[in-house]
């Protein structure tokens, strides 16, 4: 019998069901099954490409002996969809479905077990050919299985600054008054943030668009003098779709920071292609979150991999405080007060500390530079510094550590 191909499944199953009577219990997943369903769902979210999704799900499902054949219905069905189809198709009929199976070479053989009303297991053989499944399903992300920090360190916390100032406002063609909001970042915010973190001896990583070197050079020079890291954040806060222009923007941004700071940036927070980044000498990127500790991303061609320091919007100040974040409309705004954000960030810190993972907090000078948020950040830093074993490296420091000790297999010399 074939799941995924509904008409046949329907026909075949219905015979069993009708023959054995009405089933009434709903499938209750075990904890493990629930977790794995979550894993499947989560991985689906991560991958945009339909084909890759299909391959991934095939790989996951094969652990459970659910057959992988080309269905006639909509594809890809998640495991939940498969079961839901059953529940939907057989209105009034609920099935407890447990699937077990084994993988034999390229063929899956498994069984679909359903308990009917009388509690009798109804078994159906399932089988499929998986020769369509690809081998490099996990090629996009390479998670570091057993990341160990240096002796005595439980948690690494990167404080990163997205030094956008008014560039993003200008990019979105926002009116003049909105640009003054960004200007606050260069004029006031960045200085306050540097002063705050210097007070507690924490080195920042400033992800700086190339144009900021022309607008606020004093602040960048000061940042270098005080020992903070300056990294790349595109040229004017966008990645052009044209390949030559993208290369040009990356080169200009790298050169701008190099000439102002005396050394080339090695990190980026952008969507630039990994191949271009590697050519310009970048060793890490910092954006998406397929894991909550540093991991490697591999690009589509499979040729280039780079360490990624994950960042999630929960730890991004603009998400809470910026009116119209990501161009969102008036009616969508829910401006927060610093206390709410402190609670969330400190809770994240407690959790990551317990789990010995990693934290990357994103601050925008035009947002966090306001006095009330500097005060909140100070409270947060004091609490963080209380705990033993918390390490505050720059992103470069942490990236070099991970790349040295936990390299991607392709990069091992």
């Amino acid at each position, binding site marked *: 019998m074939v799941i995924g191909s509904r008409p046949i499944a329907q026909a075949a199953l219905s015979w069993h069901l009708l023959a054995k009577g009405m089933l009434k219990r709903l499938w209750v997943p075990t904890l493990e099954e629930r977790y794995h369903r979550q894993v499947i769902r989560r991985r689906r979210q991560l991958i945009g490409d339909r084909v890759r999704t299909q391959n991934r799900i095939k790989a996951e499902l094969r652990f459970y002996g659910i057959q992988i054949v080309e269905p006639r219905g909509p594809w890809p069905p998640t495991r939940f969809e498969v079961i839901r189809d059953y529940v939907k198709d057989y209105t009034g009929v609920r099935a407890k479905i447990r699937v077990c199976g084994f993988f034999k070479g390229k063929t899956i053989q498994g069984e679909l077990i359903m308990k009917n009303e009388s509690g009798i297991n109804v078994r159906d053989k399932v089988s499929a050919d998986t020769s369509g499944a690809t081998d490099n399903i996990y090629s996009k992300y390479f998670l570091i299985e057993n990341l160990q920090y240096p002796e005595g360190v439980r948690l690494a916390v990167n404080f990163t600054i997205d030094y956008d100032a*008014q560039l993003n406002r200008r990019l979105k063609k926002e009116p003049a008054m909105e640009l*003054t909001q960004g200007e606050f970042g260069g004029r006031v915010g960045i200085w306050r943030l540097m002063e705050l973190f210097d007070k507690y001896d924490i080195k920042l990583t400033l992800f700086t668009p190339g144009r900021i070197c*022309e*607008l606020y*050079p004093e602040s960048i020079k000061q940042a270098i003098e005080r020992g903070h890291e300056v990294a790349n954040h595109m040229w*004017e806060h966008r990645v052009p779709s044209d390949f030559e222009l993208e290369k*040009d923007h990356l080169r200009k941004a790298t050169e701008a920071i190099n000439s102002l700071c005396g050394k080339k940036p090695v990190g980026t927070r952008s969507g630039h292609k990994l191949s271009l980044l590697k050519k310009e000498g970048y060793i890490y990127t910092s954006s998406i979150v397929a894991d909550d500790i540093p991991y490697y991303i591999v690009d589509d061609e499979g040729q280039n991999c780079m360490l990624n320091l994950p960042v999630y919007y929960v730890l991004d100040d603009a998400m809470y405080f910026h009116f119209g974040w990501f161009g969102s409309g008036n009616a969508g705004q829910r401006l927060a007060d610093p206390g709410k954000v402190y609670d969330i960030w400190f809770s994240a810190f407690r959790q990551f500390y317990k789990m010995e993972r990693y934290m990357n907090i994103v601050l925008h000078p035009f947002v966090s530079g306001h006095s*009330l948020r500097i005060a909140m950040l100070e409270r947060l830093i004091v609490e963080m510094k209380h705990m033993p074993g918390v390490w505050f490296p720059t992103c470069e420091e942490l990236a070099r550590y991970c790349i040295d000790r936990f390299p991607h297999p392709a990069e091992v010399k």
Partner: protein
Amino acid sequence: MPWKHGYTITDEKSMDDEEVKWPEKQQCAVSIVVDYSVQSGPDGIGPEDVKKDMAEFGARVGIWRLFGLFEKYSLRATFAVPAIMAELYPDNVRAMIKRGHEVAAHGYRHEDVSRLDIEEEKKRLDATTQILEEACAKRPMGWFSLPRQQDRYPGGQLSLNTVDLLIDAGYEYMGNGMADDIPHYWVTDFHSQRNILTLPYYYHFNDLFFLMFPSPGMGSGLENPMTLFQNWRQEFDATYRKGRQFTMIVHPYLIGWGNRLEILENMILHMKGFPAVWNPTGSECARYWKAKYPASSYLKLKESIWKDYPGSIS
């Protein structure tokens, strides 16, 4: 600052906390701005807007609650009054003057001026100045451009010409700018260093975005007075320690009702508990700042080092 037209309006770095000094050794400055407009669309206040229930509440009840509070605690506020409101409520405007508050201009109808061309905008600006001069027996010193509740952007709208027109019309200060949290000079032309003093504004201290926001019918959980209060209190506490300026913006038709009066009074009591807090009106603050930190010595503009490239935004 490496000035760049279209990106920057003032110099590269703000003043340090130690450099900022208020008169008579006061520790920090607190400005209260009362936006005496009513809810409207981007075209400004029209007859339907004024006839609404909350508008009536603001003009008949809310404003008097505010007057009462300010009198009780000896506070002075700057009332940003659109010309049309001055015409409709002359008694209220006279009361503002009599009680020692300042009346500043807030547009002709509190409209979004970015939609107007230069002639129309100039005409309305002159009309506003004239109307307010008649209503107050002296011309307004300051011009505000605060947002409406349903605006896309929370800073208030300006056209490309607004600041130039204000300088030409002889206004002493621009009431709201977000580039700093102390008064700063808004420069329109680098070579002539044409500028107008701008008072600080930040939308997190504007009750518009926390009380019944966005608007009845547009979601649930619209009332967030505690968020507003926390923002006010925490900013004031931090600003007091730094010795800078804190600006709060209120609307009579919002803050004058029920629970909001409690948080306003609590905020005032909190501020009153601190010694050496200066409470200027907009023009007092502007006059002091221009005398103490004139643009000729304190505005440090530097030639632009920006280069235009093909494929980059200029």
